């Protein structure tokens, strides 16, 4: 038996059922994909957070902490020179540390070295450390961090 456009009825049924099954499976896969995509809190603007007191951070020293899962390094490179960076190395994500004596950031993983302003000095990192804005009012240090 042949339909109007010349397609045998049986073939048409095969395509119809096959296509229907395909659509059904895709429809079921969509919510699974959405479910597996990391659920995150929505919205959120940049946030100013307290990062300690000037008097507690001697010149040349640094301080590591974590805000909403972001590892952060605050350093006092000079008397009035405060800088904050994401301490995740832009190479492969190890945590860099502040080397006070040499005034450099060093990565323990593949010997990446960054200057006090976050620029790459040597090693494999492809780009500078991500910097965050620091404001100092009186004795209070504040950092603007991305939303968690």
């Amino acid at each position, binding site marked *: 038996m042949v339909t109007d456009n010349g397609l045998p009825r049986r073939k048409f049924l095969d395509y119809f059922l096959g296509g229907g099954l395909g659509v059904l499976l895709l429809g079921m896969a969509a919510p699974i994909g959405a479910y597996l995509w990391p659920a995150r809190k929505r919205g959120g603007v940049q946030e100013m957070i307290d990062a300690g007191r000037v008097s507690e951070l001697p010149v040349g020293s640094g301080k590591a902490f974590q805000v909403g899962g972001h590892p952060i390094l605050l350093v006092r490179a000079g008397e009035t020179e405060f800088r904050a960076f994401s301490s995740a190395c832009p190479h*492969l994500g190890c945590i860099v540390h502040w080397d006070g004596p040499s005034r450099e950031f060093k990565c323990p993983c593949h010997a990446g070295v960054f200057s006090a302003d976050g620029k790459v000095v040597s090693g494999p990192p492809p780009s500078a450390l991500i910097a965050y804005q620091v404001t100092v009012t009186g004795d209070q240090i504040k950092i603007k961090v991305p939303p968690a």
Partner: protein
Amino acid sequence: MGNFLSNARNKIESFMRDRYPWDVFTDFAKHQAHKPLPPHVSWWHTFGSLAVFLLVNQIVTGILLMVYYRPTSDHAFDSIKFIQTEVPAGWLIRGLHSWGATLMIVMLILHMIRVFVMGSYKKPRELTWVTGVFLLGVTVTFGFTGYLLPWNQLSYWATTVGTEVSRNIPVIGNAMTVFLRGGEGISGETLARFYVLHVVVLPWVVVGLVAVHLFLMRVQNLATMDPVGSAPSWPKDQAIRFFPEHVLKEMSVFTVFLGLLLALVIFSPPELGEPADPLNTPAGIKPEWYFLPTYQLLKYFPKTLGIFTSMLPPLLLLILPFIDRSLDRHPKRRPLAMTLGAIAVAASLILGVVGKISESHVQFLGKTYEVDLYGRWLAVHDETSDTGAR
């Protein structure tokens, strides 16, 4: 007693016979057990069954570990410590699982080399080889996901670096890394994802693939060393029966390996190290040994180029039976294939060793050398200046 047993046996048999085509079942079992194998089947042909044995070990010890293990970032480390120190025989179960994983990879590499050298991957067994390469891939993924589960410093940072590499895949790399990790960084979400893969998804995949692999192997019987296309020429009376001859070989090797496995567990128990600290990367992060060649390769080829370079060897492995279409199986008649194979093995070994000693200090002939990222050697003259700073 004997009477009782044979009575019970008769009862079960007649129960089954009344309901099912019982002879079909028993004939199948007998046929499989006594299947005649080609006469050249040797000790080298036991690596595959050793892999099955190790897989069973992984499944049994894995199920036991799940009883006390807790897949959360707060409790994972402590629960492993508890298994290792408090649970009776916990050290044994964890040791068998950890060393079993390593031996499993060793065994697959040996199995693959034997199949390669004997030319058994050639027509008509291409798909047996392809399912084998997938099995190797799944096994390595088992290793990668399992490595994170103890949630210690080494596992945390090796996973950070390992998943970061996938960012370099063009277009989808970033999304893929976030998807794998369940977020931007490695967190409890990553642990949950890896756990589900490790204990549910991968086990089903591996069991399914092994079933197909063994089915294909049995249907076509093991390859002889005759060239592709020539009719199997072995006289039936020289056949090696699967049971008891080959099974006896397998049992002997099992016993030796069980001894080796136990010796490793007892004399070199797996370490636990320090709990993961997301704020502090320790020095000397290295992946598991079977990732070392890739790890080192990636240092010479950065970014996208590195992704392509490191994808090449597995890809070549996958399509090997379709590129190498020469008819000979005997290694003596395949000098080119043997040479290329030897080069591949040597290159992996060299890259692995360089990866292992890179960024460390090595003692050699009484001198200390500092080996840098890329494996370049530098003699250290003043030993005191440099160790203190670390």
